[in-house]
């Protein structure tokens, strides 16, 4: 007879939020250190998680270590609450921590994200947990970990600009559009994970705490609230975010990050908010775009658009 059965007959008993308490303490210590040294990559003993690397094992461990029974969790994948990765991780925490979940940015106390920052301004008390594939911004130019650590220690960041130089030389402008390197609190150069550079300004002086977890690479780093975050650039090629020619086809929002959605095989396409919650909230408030279902119902191509969402 197994211990689990003896304890209550439920075979699927996990510790709260899946990780054991020792592991959570270890990760919390890493998080505290990361908050104390903004932008610095703190090594931690990343655990095997019941999902493959690349699916957010780092973010999940960070979330599991900070989540409590009172928390309200939101999970997004490229801005969407309803894609596989987001749905699975949300279900995971419902199962192992029995926490409330939401898709509403405003209602969440913890938002775990893959590659976006919500359009709605985050508030004090909220925590944004990023899933990070490769935490080292210098990695693609300097493969040796010993060397990159030394470069961080000695603030030797000339190499980072080499990458931007290459962009301009090749494309005439800085063509890096995601994982755009930033300088945190005037000290550490940091990879903001593969978020579009559109989101970089949102990291600067944010009221929310931002935590970054890289499971495979075993690194945690953080940006505490109200921290200066500057995107690297050249004097004659200043940092710029992406702009879009048209508003969201569904809610008409401007100045937000848009995804391109292919509608048919005849070249039909539309641009819609990448942040699904933002888009839905606006539509609920009565905002309408060029192809909003209400008006566009008679049109064609709508079914495919729905399917992609």
């Amino acid at each position, binding site marked *: 007879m197994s211990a689990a059965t003896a304890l209550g007959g439920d075979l699927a008993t996990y510790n709260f939020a899946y990780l054991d308490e020792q592991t959570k303490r270890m990760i919390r210590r890493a998080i505290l250190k990361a908050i104390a040294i903004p932008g610095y990559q703190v090594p931690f003993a990343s655990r095997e998680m019941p999902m493959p690397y690349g699916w957010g094992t780092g973010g999940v461990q960070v979330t599991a270590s900070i989540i409590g029974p009172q928390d309200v969790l939101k999970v997004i994948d490229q801005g969407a609450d309803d894609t596989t990765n987001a749905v699975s991780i949300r279900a995971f925490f419902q199962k192992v921590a029995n926490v409330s979940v939401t898709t509403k940015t405003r209602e969440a106390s913890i938002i775990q994200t893959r590659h976006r920052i919500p359009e709605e301004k985050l508030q004090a008390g909220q925590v944004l947990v990023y899933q990070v594939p490769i935490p080292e911004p210098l990695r693609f130019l300097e493969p040796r970990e010993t060397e990159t650590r030394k470069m961080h220690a000695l603030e030797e960041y000339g190499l980072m600009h080499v990458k931007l130089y290459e962009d301009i030389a090749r494309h005439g402008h800085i063509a890096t559009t995601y994982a755009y390197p930033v300088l945190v609190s005037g000290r550490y150069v940091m990879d903001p994970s593969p978020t579009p550079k559109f989101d970089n300004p949102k990291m600067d002086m944010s009221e929310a705490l931002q935590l970054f977890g890289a499971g495979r690479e075993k690194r945690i780093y953080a940006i505490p609230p109200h921290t200066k975050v500057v995107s690297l650039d*050249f004097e004659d090629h200043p940092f710029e975010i992406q702009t879009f020619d048209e508003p969201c086809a569904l809610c008409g929002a401007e100045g937000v990050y848009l995804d391109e959605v292919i509608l048919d095989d005849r070249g039909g396409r539309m641009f819609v908010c990448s942040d699904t919650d933002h888009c839905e909230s606006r539509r609920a408030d009565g905002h309408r775009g060029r192809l909003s279902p209400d008006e566009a119902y008679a049109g064609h191509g709508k079914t495919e658009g729905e399917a992609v969402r």
Partner: protein
Amino acid sequence: MTMLDETPLLSVTGLSRYYGERVGCRDISFEVYPGEVLAIVGESGSGKTTLLNCISTRLEPSAGCVSYRMRDGESRDLYRMSEAERRLLMRTDWGFVHQNPADGLRMTVSAGANVGERLMAVGERHYGRIRDTATHWLSRVEIAADRIDDQPRAFSGGMRQRLQIARNLVTGPRLVFMDEPTGGLDVSVQARLLDLLRGLVNDLGLAAIVVTHDLAVARLLSHRMIVMKDGRVVEEGLTDRVLDDPQAPYTQLLVSSILQV
């Protein structure tokens, strides 16, 4: 009448490096003055590369002292500096030209970025200026301006070596270390490179320490030379004196072994 500048740029005293029981180099002392080119010659295993690495902060010596006169005139013991200071020195006031250009270049970034990296490392943040400086230096090492955006992978051995030289010289170093700079190149390419190096060293008033096993390279480039064998200095002096009137048995052997063309 110009007076001799009596303060050396680099001063090596009693330097030894052991690899366990084996001797890399033992009890080496010499000085290098501003604008002077010193050749360190000897066969493979004579300790010349160990010596070069020890005096360029790439390998900690087992004993002895290496001091360098900084731009502010103060002489500092290299191995008492912080690592940050040493590394700053290496990418501003010093150059290091490797035998294999791939060791000294970033093979996957463009020629322009290879040259510009040191500028960016010391805080240059203006793309246009970086590019202008890179173009200028490429032309000084005889690389056509239209190759600026090509990666060194697409360059010949001689071009790579010239690019490596430009990359090192862009911050106006006062001392350049060279490890067999013409090794592995065709003879005709060697000649061109030597001529280029000689011109640059003269024009810029660089001090250089050149490690080579090729006595012809030493003759063309250096003012003075040190001959090493089994980790020790067996002879030193004016380059043409050492080569034309060698005193030590080993130097005589070395000089008599040169193939005449």
